[in-house]
């Protein structure tokens, strides 16, 4: 039976309840409660080792939580239900260095499909890499690689973005680009959960922030009324 979020009167896109993960009996994060609704961007802040990456892997269904549960549209999360709706940007980026930027994006589009009105070249243009399509990814700078990875996220026909450190390696214009992409995605009814260790801020808009302090006591600094 679906559980409804009172503020929206429909189930949140993603909901975590008492979510915790431990490895070899050592807590990595949690217990953590939060919801992520359509049209929202949530910024998960925490220092190195606070468990941000692990949290994203748990939310993406790659890792099973040690305790607590995740609900997707009000129902328990399974990889089968989640996978058509999610794209994960991990810190490795998921790019093949021997392939060109366009070849990488074409593979991604073949694997998960592509957003309506978007194609590998137009995604590349959207991240400001016009003209780099035929350059092997190996020859791109770290920031440019990040942009190609972001183009893959942009191209995926999914509502839920899980981005691990999307600002890392990017210059000022790159950070603005990420913010712009996030805003547009939220505006189009998508949702994003992004992590940051705090050096780069989500400047525009007013994202909800969740602080991932300490594995034992993950406090939530959540302005509950702010996003209604």
């Amino acid at each position, binding site marked *: 039976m679906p559980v409804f979020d009172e503020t929206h009167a429909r189930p949140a896109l993603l909901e975590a309840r008492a979510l915790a993960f431990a490895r070899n009996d050592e807590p990595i994060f949690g217990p953590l409660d939060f919801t992520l609704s359509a049209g929202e961007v949530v910024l998960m802040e925490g220092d190195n080792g606070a468990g941000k990456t692990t949290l994203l892997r748990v939310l993406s269904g790659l890792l099973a939580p040690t305790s607590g549960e995740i609900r997707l549209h009000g129902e328990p999360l399974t*990889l089968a239900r989640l*996978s*058509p709706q999610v794209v994960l940007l*991990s*810190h490795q980026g998921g790019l093949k260095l021997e392939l060109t930027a366009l070849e990488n994006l074409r593979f991604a589009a073949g694997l998960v499909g592509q*957003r309506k009105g978007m194609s590998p070249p137009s995604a590349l243009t959207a991240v400001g890499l016009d003209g780099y399509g035929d350059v092997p990814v190996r020859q791109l700078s770290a920031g440019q690689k990040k942009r190609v990875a972001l183009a893959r996220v942009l191209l995926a026909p999914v509502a839920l973005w899980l981005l691990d450190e999307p600002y890392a390696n990017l210059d000022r214009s790159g950070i603005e680009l990420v913010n712009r992409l996030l805003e547009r995605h939220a505006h189009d009814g998508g949702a994003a959960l992004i992590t940051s260790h705090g050096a780069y801020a989500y400047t525009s808009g007013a994202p909800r922030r969740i602080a991932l302090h300490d594995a034992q006591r993950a406090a939530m600094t959540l302005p509950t009324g702010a996003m209604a």
Partner: protein
Amino acid sequence: MTPGSTPAACAALLRRDLTLVWRRRGDAFNPLLFALIVVALFPLALGPEPEQLRRIAAGIVFVALLLAGLLALDTLFRSDYEDGSLEQLVLSPHPLSLLLACKIGVHWLTTALPLIVLAPLLGELLHLPGEVRGVLVVALLLATPLLSLIGAVCVALTVGMHRSGMLLALLVLPLYVPILIFGAGACNAAQAGLPSLAPLLWLAAALVLALVLAPLACAAALRISIS
């Protein structure tokens, strides 16, 4: 929003993996060289008498190809794991076992098939009788996909490890025993003038079974080791 179809995903994966092999085509020769060197070591160790070499030729070729395949196995998921594209495969909305079957297929095509082409030449180096050559190639055509499929399950179990070479050998080689026995056994039977069809049919039966089960097992193993 247009989600991709499963055949399109498989096609994209096949094209990507083949392109990658082509871009790194220098690496494709390594298993061939390895098998050649291993085969060349045996006459040096045992002496060059053709009679003696002829007797054990099929077995040596089989073991050399098996070891070359074992070394090549490590590359099956390694780069995909390191650059994070393995996660994308797991998170894609398509059956993981099917995608892995495509990967294993490309891997077999690009590492095992060249070895099979080389096998008659290796047999020639060891004075393998001409009438056994055909059986050897057929046995290899049936045995090497089995080696790739079963090996892939073990590679999936060790994929997160930094140095998995020795461990992988320990996991894989006991599972290879029946394949080696039937494959080399068919050649030995042919060489002794005995019927060699039965072991070949056993290999074929095992291959059919493995084609269905190994990708599923591989997907399950990968889900365990990626967590």
